[in-house]
């Protein structure tokens, strides 16, 4: 039986680091309707923060005018209790996704990045897909079961 979408939302914001807290709070608020546990909400906030930070630090690195740097988040809540979050940028894209997803791998050597963003996203969700095209952007799709309290 097909899993039906029962609710959805989309937001778009500029790739400014101050919006990292906005993005994770927005997704957490949307997810709250399914009455998940505090731990699930905490995981969601963390993974959204990781993906949005990647778009800001890597996707749009070197772009001064942030008004040209949109980040899109789409959430879909399914009847089964699955939440699917799609976080998309129109940045430079990832050359080698497999390498980028390795623990401790980072291209940002001056910024004290830990290289653990994708590892955290993998560990804190029930599924992750990364689609990227050089010069076009990156889409990270995260799936999390919102088990009820």
């Amino acid at each position, binding site marked *: 039986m097909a899993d039906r979408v029962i609710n959805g939302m989309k937001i778009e914001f500029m790739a400014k680091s101050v919006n990292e807290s906005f993005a994770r709070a927005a997704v957490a608020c949307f997810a709250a309707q399914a009455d998940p546990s505090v731990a699930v909400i*905490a995981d969601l906030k963390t993974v959204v923060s990781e993906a949005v*930070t990647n778009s800001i630090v890597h996707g749009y690195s070197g772009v001064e005018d942030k008004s040209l740097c949109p980040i899109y988040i789409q959430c879909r809540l399914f009847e089964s209790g699955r939440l699917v979050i799609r976080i998309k940028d129109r940045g430079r894209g990832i050359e080698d996704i497999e390498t980028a997803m390795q623990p401790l791998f980072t291209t940002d050597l001056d910024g*004290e990045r830990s290289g*653990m963003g994708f590892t955290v996203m993998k560990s804190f969700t029930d599924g992750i897909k990364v689609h990227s095209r050089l010069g076009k952007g990156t889409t990270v799709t995260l799936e999390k079961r919102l088990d009820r309290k």
Partner: protein
Amino acid sequence: MEIRSEKNEGKTVAYIYGEIDHHNARLAREKLDKIIEHDRPISFYLDLSSVSFCDSSGLGLVMGRLRKCNTVGCTLTVQNPSGAAMKILEIAGMDRIIRIEKGE
């Protein structure tokens, strides 16, 4: 995010309050390094008991302070990490690299 510190002889404890993400990690880094440079402690404690949110930027922050402490010749201990902070530290295996003290 807010940072306060207290110095007692050769020991400095820095308390981080609030959320650690990429946005405020830079400011935290600057403040903590200033404290380390000013106090020149023998042992530096990073108290994470009041950290309400922590993503991998927090890992970078802790790893960076470990390097800083090694450079100036003091030890680093993470003190009473909150659930949010501990979960991230464990995922990265940092609980095996860095000294973590729990409980007062």
